[in-house]
């Protein structure tokens, strides 16, 4: 067996150290990895853990390295926990800044220098959005998104006017619970409350089932609670992820009593806050909200009291005024009626006086007119008769004279006619009358030759004999 040349182990580790130093000294790397085998030494503020890389489908470890954080790195982790609400622990996916070194005793050393909060926040936010999405999808009847808000069965519940009987879900020793209790019990208005505490561990994601069990206990108790208050204990630990779980979100959204939260989250709301009736920032705020709510009711009652006092005084005033108005109206109307009637009676009197005088006057005038007519007409009529008589008399005188004159003319006519016709007047005009045997001859045929005739003429008679006779026809 040959004896090979050897070196001291320290010489080897020194060479390794030299190589590592040459390769990594002064360099840092941002590495994405999962945390496992985590342990924390609080007194020294040392974090020991492994960083591993797993296959995408989740099974085998591809790479693994031990890491440590202390000093600056430990402070960064603390800041990370504050900022994200995510506890640095196993199975979290992180982006860390590391340096690589080699130690003679401890070997390869990866030291955590910084941890990217934003990377983890982004991851948590993605998880939270996934939970919310699933809640919306699984329970469309219970949860709806309206704008930026989530409307749930719970936050659609009406708060009773006074919140006096309260079930509180909290961890027994948390500072938050003390704050809540103190605030309620020492309220400045002297309000009393009936509070049942349902203690649980309100830390760590895996405790969601415990919290849910408390809610179920409250529901099964059938006590007439006005509201359920969920407060987180606060303290050093900062793990809110419990309140982003699907399990609690679903339970709160469906819970039949109004849920008031006071989880103590400084940055953004948890899923439970979103599903709850009334989210507040802290347990103290939750207590203050309840006191304010009750005070609001009391103020409303006091306002009603004030209104009733004022209104009843107004009512009295209105009635007194209405009575006065009625009284005045009745008095005025009564006086008006009397006045109207007085006028009417007076008018009636005046009218009757005037009309009766007028009637008498009218009658007098008519009588005067008739008297005048009657006195004037007879004189006229008598005068007319007188004229008629005179006319008659004159007519008669005239006509009588006319009659007599006419008769005289007629008689005169006969006088003239007969004077002319008398034989004496005929003889005077040279005519003669021939007589034969005392017969007046009027024609030749009465005479013969030899007849003796007597001729009568004016102044006497002569006797003659016809010697010759000659006839003619008268057309001489």
């Amino acid at each position, binding site marked *: 067996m040959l004896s090979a040349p050897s070196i001291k182990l320290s010489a080897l580790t020194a060479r390794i150290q030299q190589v590592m130093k040459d390769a990594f000294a002064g360099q840092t790397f941002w590495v994405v990895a999962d945390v496992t085998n985590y342990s924390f030494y609080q007194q020294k503020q040392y974090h020991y853990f492994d960083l591993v890389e797993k296959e995408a489908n989740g099974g085998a470890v591809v790479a693994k390295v031990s890491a440590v954080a202390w000093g600056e790195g430990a402070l960064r982790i603390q800041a990370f926990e504050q900022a994200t609400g995510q506890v640095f622990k196993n199975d979290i996916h992180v982006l860390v800044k590391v340096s690589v070194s080699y130690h003679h005793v401890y070997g390869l050393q990866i030291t955590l220098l910084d941890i990217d909060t934003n990377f983890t926040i982004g991851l948590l936010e993605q998880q939270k959005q996934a939970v919310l999405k699933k809640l919306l999808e699984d329970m469309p009847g219970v949860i709806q998104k309206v704008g930026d808000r989530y409307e749930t069965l719970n936050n659609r519940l009406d708060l009773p006017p006074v919140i006096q009987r309260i079930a509180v879900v909290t961890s027994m020793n948390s500072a938050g619970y003390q704050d809540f209790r103190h605030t309620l019990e020492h309220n400045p208005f002297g309000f009393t409350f009936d509070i049942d505490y349902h203690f649980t561990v309100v830390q760590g994601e895996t405790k969601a089932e415990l919290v849910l069990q408390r809610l179920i206990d409250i529901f099964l108790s059938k006590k007439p609670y006005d509201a359920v208050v969920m407060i987180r204990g606060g303290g050093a630990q900062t793990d809110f992820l419990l309140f982003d779980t699907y399990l609690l979100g679903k339970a709160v959204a469906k819970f039949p009593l109004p849920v008031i939260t006071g989880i103590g989250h400084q940055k953004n709301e948890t899923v439970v806050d979103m599903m709850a009736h009334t989210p507040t920032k802290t347990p103290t705020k939750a207590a203050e909200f309840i006191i304010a709510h009750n005070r609001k009711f009391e103020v409303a009652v006091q306002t009603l009291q004030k209104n009733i006092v004022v209104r009843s005084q107004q009512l009295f005033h209105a009635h007194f005024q209405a009575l006065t108005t009625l009284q005045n109206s009745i008095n005025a109307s009564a006086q008006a009626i009397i006045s109207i009637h007085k006028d009417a009676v007076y008018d009636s009197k005046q009218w009757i006086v005037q009309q009766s005088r007028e009637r008498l006057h009218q009658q007098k005038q008519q009588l005067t007119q008739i008297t005048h007519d009657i006195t004037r007409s007879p004189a006229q009529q008598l005068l007319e008769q007188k004229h008629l008589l005179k006319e008659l008399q004159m007519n008669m005188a005239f006509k*009588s004279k006319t009659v007599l004159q006419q008769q005289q003319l007629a*008689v005169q006519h*006969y006088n003239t006619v*007969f*004077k002319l*016709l008398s*034989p004496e007047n005929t003889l005077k005009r040279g005519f003669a009358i021939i007589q034969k045997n005392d017969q007046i001859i009027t024609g030749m045929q009465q005479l013969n030759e030899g007849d003796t005739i007597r001729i009568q003429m004016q102044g006497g008679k002569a006797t003659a004999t016809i010697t010759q006779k000659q006839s003619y026809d008268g057309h001489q």
Partner: protein
Amino acid sequence: MDTNNLTYEAAFEELKEIEADIANETVSVDVLAEKVKRAAALIQFCQSKLRATEVEVNNIIKQMEKTKKD
């Protein structure tokens, strides 16, 4: 000739008859004279009567007018 009991009316009628007779020449010269004589008597009667009536009527009228003026 007789004109007693004669009225003016009758006398005037007779005069008209005589005139008619003479106009018809049925009166012989023998009676003509007689007729004319009768006519003359009738005319005188009528004229008398007329004159008397005139006087009487005028008197009445005068009387009337006199009375009226009273």
